[in-house]
């Protein structure tokens, strides 16, 4: 299968000479098309930094990131916007919707920017909204709807361009458990029905249990990796918890 994302020896260091923080330290990973991958880890383990590097928000210190075979670390700054526009979709913890636009306008923004045929915009927006269950609120403003609805609007915006890769940073972080569940089911559906490739950063085992594969990060490196395979979600959830327990303390120090 085609590799949607390939990371080779990625390093991202912060700070000054005397005080270096190795946020991502020599990390390599591959994500295939149609995968739904979660990255887990304690705070400070480098999850968000990794995501920021992939989304070209942050520059890498060294290493390579290939999206659909193209090395994005080699892209010049002025080409980055175009790259993001055509290849990436984003879902953030705090939604990142524009307050001045309605839900419909927020979703259509991604299309307009990509210079989609104006006549098709409205239809596409309604279609996707219907699938994600937010058709009724299309004409409302972000501050008039609930957090779950906002996040599904962000999903719609991320999905509408059929990007190669959807990046989600703690998408359930600001949601209650019911909305979280609905959102995760939506994302699962996006993955199943539209074959969307999703990379999600989370520290919540429940969220991670919706994925097909979970990577565990510690000190900027991949510590462990488990696959769901044919297991039920409950079994997978328990397995994730087991790994997390291990992750919590250093094995060597528990002798």
């Amino acid at each position, binding site marked *: 299968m085609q590799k949607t994302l390939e990371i080779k020896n990625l390093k991202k260091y912060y700070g000054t000479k005397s005080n270096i923080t190795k946020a991502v330290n020599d990390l390599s990973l591959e994500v295939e098309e149609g995968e739904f991958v979660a990255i887990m880890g304690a705070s400070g383990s480098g999850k968000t930094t990794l995501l920021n590097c992939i989304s070209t928000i942050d520059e890498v210190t060294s290493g390579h990131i290939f999206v659909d075979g193209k090395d994005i670390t080699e892209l010049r700054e002025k080409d980055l*916007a175009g790259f993001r*526009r*055509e290849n*990436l979709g984003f879902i953030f913890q705090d939604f*990142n*919707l524009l307050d*001045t636009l309605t839900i419909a306008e927020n979703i259509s923004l991604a299309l307009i920017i990509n210079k989609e045929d104006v006549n098709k915009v409205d239809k596409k927006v309604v279609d996707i909204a219907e699938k994600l269950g937010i058709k009724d609120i299309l004409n409302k403003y972000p501050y008039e709807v609930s957090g779950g609805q906002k996040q599904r609007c962000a999903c719609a*915006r991320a999905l509408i361009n059929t990007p190669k890769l959807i990046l989600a940073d703690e998408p359930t972080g600001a949601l209650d458990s019911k909305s979280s569940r609905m959102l995760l089911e939506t994302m699962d559906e996006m993955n199943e029905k539209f074959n969307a490739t999703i990379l999600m950063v989370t520290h919540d085992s429940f969220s991670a249990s919706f994925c097909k594969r979970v990577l565990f990060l510690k000190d900027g490196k991949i510590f462990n990796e488990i696959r769901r395979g044919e297991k039920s979600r409950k079994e997978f959830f328990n397995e994730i918890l087991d790994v997390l327990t291990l992750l919590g303390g250093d094995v060597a120090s528990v002798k």
Partner: protein
Amino acid sequence: MSSKLAFRNVKRSLKDYVIYIVTVVMAFSLIFAFNFVSFSSDILELSDMMTNLKYAIIFVSCIIVFVIAWLINYTMKFMFSKRSKEFGTYMLLGIEKKDINRMFLIENMVLGFFSFFFSFFFGIVLGNIISAIVMQLFEMPYQINLSITLAPVLLSTLYFILIYLFTLFRSSRRMKKMKIHDLLYLEKKNEEKIWKRKKNRNILFIIFVILGILGLYFCDYAFVISNDPRMLSYLGISILLLIISLYGITFTLGDFILAFINKRKKIKYKNDNLFVVKNFEAKSRTIGFTLGTLSLLITLTLVCMNMSFIMKDAFENNIEQQAPYDILVEGMYSDVEESWTGKQDNRKKAWEYIDYIHENYEIDDELYYQILTQHNHQVAKYIKDIGNNGLYDYDTYLKVSDYNKLLEMLGAEPIELSDDEYFVTGDKTVQKYLDEIAQEKADIIINGKRLSLKSTTMENFRLGWSTGNSFLIVVPDSIAKNMQVVTELYVFDTKEETTEKDNSKLEQLGYYEFKDGDAYFAYFPVTVRGYYESSNRTAMTIFSFSLLYVSIIFITVVGTILSIQTLSDSTKNKYQYQLLKKLGVEDRGIYKTIRKQVTCNFLFPAIYPIIISVVTSYSINRLFYAVTSASMNYFTSIIITILIFAIIYGIYYIATYMTFKNNIEE
């Protein structure tokens, strides 16, 4: 696409832009109003010299353009930081940076033009008010004038374009430097410390205070030696020292206070002191430069406004001193100038001149009088630097009947003097000597008769009475015998007010050809009130209004920036205040803390400037003391200045506090 988004944003985020619009409208209304006045034909026709107002206002406008550009740049930076996350999202979605930049520029230009358009209307109204005030000064009727001349419009537009070119350029550079990461996380970013080392700051604070004291001392010394050419260099050093000290103290005061409070636990842990002081210290360290500039602007505001009042008083007083009567003719005759051979001839000519005035003007009241002397120094000996204070170094007398008539013509109460009394009247320069005389109650002897001092006064004294002497001794008519004539004068009170034209006519007539061998010209010095009124009021308008223009614009700038500064804090501090609330602080306590914080923000940049302006106004007063009216002293003028400043500043303070409170409550 970007223009469509820009227009949408303008429409939708108009509420956020209120501060911006109010700022631009106010600034440009003022610029337009003052330009409108300086080009108004009504004002220009007031006097020949009034064209200078135009140049003064243009000159001042050049300085103001810089300050306004700084202000608008600051406001734009504030709007930019407020919307950084939005821009970040645009970039994340794949909009090119140059498109976002263009959108922001279009937004600002739309708002700018919109505000500029409005400021024309406010400017005309404001301009009319200012014109009315000027016309009132000249005692002329004023009619509302809504017509617009081209020149001020073009000039204001030019200023507008210059300011916007600068700010849009700055803004687009700011945007170019920004990375998507910075934009998305700008809100969470702390401001960078300007001053990293902490150790020596307390010592530095003391050094800056000493520099400030030195600056004030040099300033005072410069005015003490005001006739010396070194004065300018002293003044220059003083200004430099004061500027360094202003910035330096702003940078270091926060830490100094913190260090002071850290050592005193009673103050430190009392109420919310720690919270407020910490906030304040962070402020002075991060935006010290901005605060320093604000302090500088406040200092300039206070000094300019104070000067404006002093100038106004000085010019008004000058009219009363130099030209108390409609027409004053002097130098008709003198006994004391022995070298003057043609004086009898001159006297004859002078009477012909007086006759001419009688024929050509309708006279309400008049007086012919003489200033007399016996070359004594009975009073003059008290006046130490007499050479500086008058033409003659001996006692000069005036008959009490003449004195009372002169007072009556001015509408003042006459004095009563018995046969064995004398009275001294003088101007402000000899005040302290008059006080000495009053204390000693020295008797004087004239023609063998002893006279005792009735009293002395500075009220009502006019320089015009005695051709430049700073004091006169008023004696009973019966005593004034066997005296030499120092000078002869003739004053008229005409029915109609005199004008500038009367002055040139009478001045020309005053010349006559005096044949003594070679051709030789002589003239009677004539003082026409109309001319003095016109020239002094013109000068007053030019100086006072230019200074007032500067100071009002500066207050506006300072108020707006402080308000923006404090309000941008309010969004950042929201979490802190919510935390305080969660920790159990009541609403009332929170309001109190907010009030303290806002008060600190507003008071901090104003205190040192107030100290500087009070001290410098004392120094400046050394120069203006002699020319201002008796009721004017440096203290009243600076108090009025500070009051006016406080009122305008207070409006900003209250508006900021209310908005701050709303922001936190939201």
